[in-house]
């Protein structure tokens, strides 16, 4: 669990690093995606109980406490959906932008500034 947490955090940092240093827009989106993956890993650990079961109500369940907390999982699901949507939208933007200007370098799109 700790490993997942650490990896998740590392992934997030990697994503941040990428976001700050990459100038290619697709790579920036990728960085966001990586961060999100890291985040999701972190989130999923939040509700995890070692040895717990999936939080599915079946008839032979006796002890509710051994459930892995279902809420973070729900959250993660939502987060993944939203993240994918945003990333898709960003990529769509990038495609349009590339079509207009033929460049993926974010520095070429500084028309509005100051």
């Amino acid at each position, binding site marked *: 669990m700790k490993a997942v947490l650490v990896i998740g955090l590392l992934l*997030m940092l990697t994503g*941040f690093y990428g*976001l*700050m*240093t*990459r*100038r290619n*827009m697709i790579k*920036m989106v990728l960085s*966001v995606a990586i*961060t*999100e993956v890291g*985040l999701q890993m*972190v*989130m999923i650990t*939040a509700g995890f109980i070692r040895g717990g079961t999936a939080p599915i109500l079946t008839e032979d369940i006796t002890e509710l406490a051994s459930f892995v907390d279902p*809420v*973070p999982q729900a*959250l993660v699901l*939502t*987060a993944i959906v*939203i*993240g994918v*949507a*945003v*990333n898709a*939208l*960003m990529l769509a*933007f*990038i495609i*349009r*932008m590339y079509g*207009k*200007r033929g460049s993926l370098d*974010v*520095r070429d*799109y*500084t*028309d*509005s*500034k*100051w």
Partner: protein
Amino acid sequence: MVTPIYIFIIALGIAFLLPLLERAKKGAAETVFLAALSGIALISWHWLFSLLTGRCEIGEIFTAGFRPPFSINLRVGMEEAVFTSAINLATLAGAVYLIRELSGRGTKSMMLYLLFVMGMNGMVLTRDIFNLFVFMEITGIASYALVALRLDTKGLTAGFKYAIAGSLASIFMLLGIIVIYMITGTLNIDSIASRMVSFSGTAAAGFVAPAVFMLVFAFMIEMKQFPANGWALDVYDSAAPGISAMISAGSAGAALFAIYKILPIAGEGWYMAAAITGSVTFVAANLIGLKQERAGRLLGYSSIGQMGLLLTVVSLGLKGSLPSWQLIAVGLFINHLLAKAGLFWLTGITGEDRIRNWGVIARRPFLLMMMGLFMAALSGFPPFPAFWSKWTLVMSMFSGGMKVWVVFILLGSLFEVAYLFRWFGYAVRGGVEDGESGDIVKGTPEKTAVIFFGAALLTAVAYYMMGKMIDNSTLMLMPLVGAAGLLLFERFDPRVRGIVSLAAVLYYGYMIIPGLSGMPLFFNSFFLGGGAIMLLATLHRRTASRGFYPMLLLMIGSLSALALSSTSLQFFYAWELMTFSSYILVLRGKKAMKPALLYMVFSAAGAYLVMAGFASAGGTVFGGAGDGIAGMSGSLQMLPFILLAAGFLVKVAGMGLHVWAPGAYAEAEDDSSAIISSILSKAGVLGFVFLFIKAGTAFTGSTYLYSTIGWIGAITAFFGALYAAMQEDAKKLLAWSSIGQVGYMILGLAAMNQIGWVAALYHSVSHFMFKGLLFLAVAGVVYRTGTRNMYEMGGLIKRMPMSFISVMIGIIALSGVPPLTGFGGKWLLYNALIERGWYLQAALAFFSSTVAFLYCFRLVHAIFLGQAKPAFRKIKEAPRSLIAAQYILIMAIMMFSMKPSILIKPIMGIVGERFDTLLTWQANTLYSPFGYWNGFAVMMVVCALFAILLVILLLISPKPQKVKQFNIVFAAERPETPETTHYAWKFFTPYERAFSGILKPAATRFWNAVGEWAEAVAAMSRHIYSGNTGAYVVQIFIFGILLFILSRGGLS
């Protein structure tokens, strides 16, 4: 109560139905789309209405049938109702505005818009933190797409930036949420808040702080706090104005509401950090805005600034430092919502992004008026909500001991005023730069209607707030009602409007003056009577003069209200109203763009000082009404005294703070100049009168303060006169002269004895008469000759004898030469100063009054005497109405000169028993402890002598041959041209040389430097918004670090 679920149902349902509908019937989608929005809006209004009337309680709605924390709950309380109503109203209006654009893009855009609206509603309503996140993302995704709706590079880039920033925010938010969930085990905001408290001191507390930090950080990004807001600026800049309006007005409001919900979770320690962040953002955004040249981005800076201010208010309010903060926040928010949206919409209509080219809007007076209205609202002029909010804010901050905050907030507001009115100046006076003169702004009817609707709504809210906030609001409303009523006459001939205004002023005066006494009586009869005379003079106008009479009436009315005010708020209300109306009047001048801006900025700064003064005085009743004529109230201390005095000094253009005045007086339209210079300049005098009555002389440091003010008055008088003598421009000359003359009044008032006050008030009246006379006469001359340079005129006595007589009487009165009125003022003043023991000031004032001879002579010589120019050999006498007004003034001058007692006696009555009685009358002679003056005898002796000697000259002189202008002994030559023979240019060069040491315009240079520094800082700091998304990301992280440090400092 209608359950909020309907909002989501309507939004989502209609969103899915729209494509089908569109397929079924073309155009049906639009109708349904608008109907859906209306439905959503109606629901929220219904809540608001019910809650206001008390027909229902605050509602908690649980989804999925469980109580929280097991399910998501929504709450409809008062705050939620207000915010959703406002947001839905704005979005509905925005949808109407955008409808053509949206339908042009197909049903998809409408779907996005619906989602956008739903998301915002959800953000306001939900009480679940994760749900909040979801709604935020919905709003976010919808707005990313809406921003890029036009599919141009700019929009796409902005959408991309927005998405990146939004993703970062959501990442941090999720991280925060999950940690908080881990700790508290709940996602319900209310439960989190209550549970968080119990964690202090436990092991989990170590996680709390970072989690809260993440959460707040995320919301700060959403709130577009400085410096992590470059992307937001680009969004405002790049999106279609209608969309920007919605993002600025709606989603920002929703974000504000969200953070209002979040902050309590974060806990006490965060309030201060958030407040600091907010005010830093407010100041920084407005400062950087100074340098902005593009309308959309300018509004972006303003929006961000407003968000910062709101954040400050909310966090300080939550902290408990600001009583009645809800009112402040709601006022500011609604004001921002409507005004900002209105301005964005206007930007959309003009389609002009560079503010320099906004002259295009000037051809549509209606739109221009709307723009002015939104500007006034945004910069916090009465009666708009922001005015009341800012007032309450500053008052509460001062009473809460938060003086530094006040400084920052007022500074930021000042920057905002500066750039907004710079823009407005371009709109009114800028013209069109690129020569596309045929390009007339056309708004579609629905867009115009929406803007009008916004303005009307703003006015309605203003009216509502005004009724709540101010005592005696009917009286205070009179000027506005008058001006608004006059707007109805705009279609008529200017003369009709003038006569209506005149009648209005006279009627108003007839109604109120009989019931008055003391200072209000004096100033009201002065303002209204003077205003009537000046209105008479404006009747010569033949041009359209759009908006002139309403503004004039507003100014006169607000001056009257100023004199009638009995509370600080009333005073300040009238003061601001006067500032705004006179600003518009100044701006009407052809070259008035810069001077008007300078006037506005200085006036605003002065007004803020006054406001701070009132705040520091702490609810002291300020104003003239209700004050007896006996005694001083002595209820002010040093700090409020200094602040108020500084504010009034700006208004009277005291030396050092005068730089706005020459331009504003001179560049206004010719007849407005007369009004502004002769009447408006007395507003500051009135301020000082009230201030001194309130302050008395008993407080600590009063001696030094009064003598400082006295010295400033004397120095102002001196430099005013000196600079007047050096002007080439007739109106500039008179403007400087006015500055100097008001200096005498201040000097007289500051002497704080009976003679001084009588002198000041007497001089106010007589200055009104002769300066009005001079300005009107010069207005007539300028009207006929079309130039203001005196050396281009000359010899006009033959063509305009009536104006000449006016000017001659005017300058004799002005220079204080007996027997006309000016002398009385001087005599009283010197007596007052000697009584006070201010001999040096008296000598300086004396010297200044002799310097006044220089410009007096120059004025009459260069214009009327000397050589007539061929270009003007056929011009006519000034228009009749101008002459009529002048001769009314001349008659008044003559009357008061003949019998000074009919003016001085009432003034002595008004000054009353506040001071020891020093002046006594014996028959026609006025006695002071030092000397005496019999105006009547002087007049008689002079007149008799003049008559006798004239008869003698007529008897002894041979019949003179009338000769023409070149029949002069020109060293045996003949003059070549009148232009080279008329000695008028750089008339007092030797004087200038002799005084060159002190003639350096130090104040102008200083303020120029201040302005340049501010601009330089703005220009420098705005470069951080490089437009590079990567840099924005870095800035967001830097902001995070800063916020972290701040929160550490705040938490410890």
